[in-house]
């Protein structure tokens, strides 16, 4: 016990500027831990506070396994393997867009999503073993999230510092699977049963722990919705057939729930007329944003709303030829001054009265909405000597207008985002709808 606590005693002592004796600190610490039974983190902070120090100067966090993490921890230390890592652009309210690092860390006990809000001294790659000190945790959508802030130190360790963790086949399920409709799939659910029609399936080769493995992925649907699936075993599934999958689990990709199943699952083939035909199931379900917000996202959904605002970076933009980032003042934040490649895009706030998403339209869609090509936009901007003219024209055409959009909705810390696949301005027969509603209110005229 004493040896384990020694670094923490030193840490407290240092935070207090050596004005309290180590024996005294050790006595207090052990009293907090053994008599009052608070967590080590709380104990250290309390002692520092009690003696007039600043708990934020504590440097030695408490080493934990990922499974032990709870939301709201101020200083956690971890040894973990990078399971996935990607960059993303965020725009905190009232600040410039910046690129942050996000991904998943794993150890033998569990995995946890992480976000690095500050640039890291070393780049991270999938498979790296890292030691994280002074990270903090928060709750996001009911899940623990690990955050790296200004005080967080991240260093690489040898790959063998952490035993390779094999996700493996997992334990066989013992209880009966829970029947779930596609629309009700939620991240983290396991041993679910889904009755659905396979709409599409393809075989892909992926690498798992350095070995090639076949995964059969595609889209399945019931009357309530569609979802991506991944089968880690060849069940000889074919497009169009109706199956019951028992013993599947649900993961999510950027907020979109997806279903996965492996050799633990059982597949039962059912009569084809049990579900509507593929042509019907393939339709993109019309959804309210408040429902998407609750689920965290959705695959191939249709939204109707009003574009109430254009965000920064809409219109004619120039991208870095290396990394496709949008240049700011002619420079890429990674590659410096480069010759930018012109592109058109719209980032707009779509609000349907129940919630809001950021809708991103690519060049092709933007050209169609503007009824103007990229080249025409470049020419117009040259003549006006400002790219604002393109943005203003877009605002003219789009803002305050009702629109229907279709695409995948994902979520991150800043809310929901749709990468729009198709869009059309809505023409609504206002009178017909008003008449119908009035009749519902007062009876037919």
């Amino acid at each position, binding site marked *: 016990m004493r040896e384990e606590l020694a670094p923490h005693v030193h840490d407290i002592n240092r935070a207090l500027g050596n004005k309290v004796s180590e024996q005294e600190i050790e006595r207090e610490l052990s009293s907090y831990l053994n008599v009052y039974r608070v967590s080590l983190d709380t104990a250290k902070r309390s002692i520092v506070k009690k003696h007039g120090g600043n708990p934020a100067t504590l440097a030695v966090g408490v080493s934990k396994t990922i499974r032990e993490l709870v939301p709201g921890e101020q200083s956690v230390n971890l040894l973990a393997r990078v399971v996935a890592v990607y960059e993303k652009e965020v725009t905190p309210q009232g600040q410039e867009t910046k690129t942050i690092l996000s991904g998943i860390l794993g150890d033998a006990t569990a995995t946890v999503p992480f976000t690095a809000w500050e640039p890291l001294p070393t780049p991270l790659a999938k498979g790296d073993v890292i030691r994280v000190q002074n990270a903090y945790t928060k709750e996001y959508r009911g899940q623990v999230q690990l955050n790296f802030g200004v005080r967080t130190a991240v260093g690489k360790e040898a790959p063998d510092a952490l035993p390779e963790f094999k996700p493996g086949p997992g334990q066989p399920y013992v209880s009966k699977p829970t029947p779930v409709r596609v629309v009700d799939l939620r991240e983290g659910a396991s041993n679910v049963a889904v009755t659905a029609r396979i709409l599409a399936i393809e075989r892909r080769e992926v690498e798992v722990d350095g070995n090639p493995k076949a995964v059969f992925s595609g889209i399945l649907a019931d009357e309530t919705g569609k979802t991506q699936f991944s089968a880690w075993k060849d069940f000889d599934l074919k497009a169009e057939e109706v199956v019951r999958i028992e013993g599947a689990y649900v993961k999510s990709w950027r907020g979109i729930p997806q279903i996965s199943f492996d050799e633990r699952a059982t597949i039962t083939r059912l009569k084809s007329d049990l579900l509507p035909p593929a042509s019907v199931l393939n339709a993109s379900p019309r959804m309210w944003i408040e429902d998407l917000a609750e689920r965290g996202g959705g695959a191939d959904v249709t939204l109707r709303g009003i574009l109430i605002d254009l965000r920064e970076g809409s219109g004619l933009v120039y991208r870095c030829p290396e990394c496709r980032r949008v240049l700011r003042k002619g420079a890429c934040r990674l590659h410096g001054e480069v010759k930018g490649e012109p592109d058109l895009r719209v980032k707009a706030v779509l*609000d349907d*009265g129940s919630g809001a998403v950021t809708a991103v339209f690519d060049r092709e869609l933007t050209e169609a909405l503007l009824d103007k090509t990229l080249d025409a936009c470049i020419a117009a901007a040259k003549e006006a000597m400002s790219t604002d003219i393109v943005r203003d024209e877009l605002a003219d055409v789009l803002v*305050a207008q009702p629109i229907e959009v279709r695409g995948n909705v994902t979520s991150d810390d800043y809310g929901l985002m749709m990468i729009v696949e198709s869009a059309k301005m809505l023409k609504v027969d206002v009178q017909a709808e008003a008449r119908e509603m009035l009749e519902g209110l007062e009876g037919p*005229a």
Partner: protein
Amino acid sequence: MREVAWRLFASEYNDATLEMNGGGERAPSYVVTPLGAKVNRVFVVGVITDVENVGTDIQPMWRARVSDPTGTFHIYAGQYQPEAAATLSKLKPPVFGAIVGKSRVYSPEAGTVFTSIRPERIKAVDESVRDYWILEACRSLRKRLDTMAEAQKMDPLTKEGLAKIGVKEAIADGIVQAVNHYGTVDLSRYTAMLAEGLRYLLPEYREPANPGEATAEPAPAAKEEAPSEPDETELKVLEIIATLDKDGKGAPWEGILEAATSKGVAKDALEESINSLLDKGLIYEPILGRMKKI
């Protein structure tokens, strides 16, 4: 998460006397309406009837009035809303305007509450956008009316009880707050407001004449109106206002009265139809004593 932009009528918004602070430094604040809309952001489309600088030349504060079929929104844009202020200062009322903004409450003394909007974006739009907004505002009002009717049946009223009938948590919170603050509100007033909004969109309720249609109108007992005559008077008055508005500043009241009397419209009837035209958003008062057609 970005706050949703509520579509709601001026009359419901202006009825609100409850302000809620989320607690904490940066927490958003809300205006809760009698029907339980917990409003931080609004989206409004209406007729911007006048824009005025109520600040100074150095520190302008632009005030705009935006009318919808039920009442008037007050919009204030100052130095901290540079874009909206610039747009407002250039607008030539009357004009259809779409406004996205934040809800604001001003309470100069205990018991007096004024609601207003601090705009984020303002855009001049056309009539079709305004009509679609009215439809959306009606849909939204309808939903709140239905939910509030259910809520008024519950005893005790709890968020959990509302969740059981499928009300989302954020909505349920507004409803519980509203009932605690306003008590049991009279829903018929808002049902009438909804019908008024819908009729505004329908030509059969706008156009005069055609007595056949007029009698078919299921006039609610509370809002008894003589079927066709006021419409004719209103038309006359509208015509008078249009003819007398020679300099674009609006028709003077004395002139309207004189012309109306000569066309056989009594003063009382004239005042009534002017009020009705104002309510319907067909005319407005650019300056005191002058009327202008929209």
